[in-house]
């Protein structure tokens, strides 16, 4: 037997370790990776369409109500920090603080959804709809008298409602799951200093939703 043969006969045996994350946490991270690609499709379409838009894009603040949404952004950031405080509390074994911070998170999250619903209603009332601008509405007049560039408003409506709508959907799902966890796990005191995976995992999801909003707020409302 030649040396090459002998080398070739060594079976491949390197040893290594896993990623040191328990199943649900790893599963959530994997899920978030796929969420990144989902929002890539939506945000990517927005960037691409805006680059190729037929006319000038409406300036920030002309269609959307930025102060209200800035307040909403603030709410979501607060809910993120309260979520991480809830996590820190139970990691230190403090049930009482966990209940408090978890509830704060739910309230902030639910308020975010509420404010967004209000924003949508208001926008639709002004005539801003997914297909662009409704005929005979307040915004249609602005387009007619030339204060609002009209050529790209169809794309504006399409991308705005799709992106923020799906973000809102994610927030809603998050709030519902948190309410469920609050009633079935947090209030009965089922999370302990030894077992608080659920808080960490829902937290990961919640922070991710917050992270997406940080990007969306900047590129949709401010640019």
């Amino acid at each position, binding site marked *: 037997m030649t040396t*090459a*043969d002998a080398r*070739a*006969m*060594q079976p*491949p045996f390197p040893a290594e370790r896993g990623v040191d994350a328990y199943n649900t946490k790893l599963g959530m991270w994997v899920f978030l990776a796929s969420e990144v690609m989902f929002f890539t499709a939506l945000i990517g379409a927005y960037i691409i369409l805006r680059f190729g838009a037929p006319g000038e894009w409406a300036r920030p603040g002309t269609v959307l109500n930025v102060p209200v949404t800035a307040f909403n952004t603030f709410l979501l950031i607060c809910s993120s920090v309260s979520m991480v405080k809830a996590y820190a509390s139970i990691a230190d074994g403090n049930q009482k603080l966990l209940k408090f911070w978890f509830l704060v998170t739910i309230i902030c999250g639910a308020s975010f959804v509420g404010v967004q619903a209000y924003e949508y209603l208001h926008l639709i009332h002004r005539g801003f709809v997914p297909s662009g601008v409704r005929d005979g509405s307040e915004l249609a007049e602005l387009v007619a008298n030339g204060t609002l560039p009209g050529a790209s408003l169809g794309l504006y409506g399409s991308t705005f409602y799709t992106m923020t709508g799906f973000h809102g959907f994610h927030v809603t799902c998050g709030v519902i799951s948190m309410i469920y966890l609050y009633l079935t796990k947090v209030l009965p005191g089922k999370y302990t200093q030894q077992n608080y995976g659920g808080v960490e995992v829902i937290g990961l999801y919640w922070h991710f939703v917050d992270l997406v909003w940080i990007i969306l707020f900047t590129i949709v409302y401010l640019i």
Partner: protein
Amino acid sequence: MKWWLPAPASTFAGPIDGMFTAILIITGLAFVLVESGLIWFVFKYRGRPGQKGYYTHGNTRAEYIWTAVPAVVCVGLAIVSNHYWKQIKGRDSVPPDAYPIKVHAKQFEWLFTYPGPDGKLGTADDIVDVRNKLHVPVGRPVVLQEEAEDVIHSVFIPVFRLRQDAVPGMNIRSWFIATVPGEYDLACSQLCGMGHYKMHAKVTVQSQADFDAWLAKAAQGDIE
């Protein structure tokens, strides 16, 4: 029935058919090599009771070879492809003196607009919307300016080896030089609705004189 590509009728046919043949030879060799190896192994190493296989986990040198050879061949093909691709579809490939014809595609017909005597599209003497009849002069660059009204269509002229989608919202230029006078088929090759199969036009390649005569008649409304 021919067992080969259609008879060529444009200058693109040369390089494209040449590349087709070259790839056919290369892949044919690979095909024969692999399949004959497979068949040979199947017979030579067929199982016999009481015998064992040769215990090996591989051979690095052999693997290097069969990684490198396909890599070199593929990169070579890529270089050749890119060379011709730039000539055919490249950014600046359209000859400046090319004769422009506007192609307006819609469900389910082709409307061709020819420039009038001034040789420019978009002027008053254009012969507009000639239905399903593409006439081109032989031996002269022609550039199709393709646009679509409703959905995506695709200009496909097999004898020219020419294919280019016409996309709504875009104006796409696609050029060729016809070499053989005659009557050919132009087909839509992108599914465009239920009438897709019948969206075809006749291509007539004719001498410059015949073409000019036809154009003069077409200007009078007689496109036959």
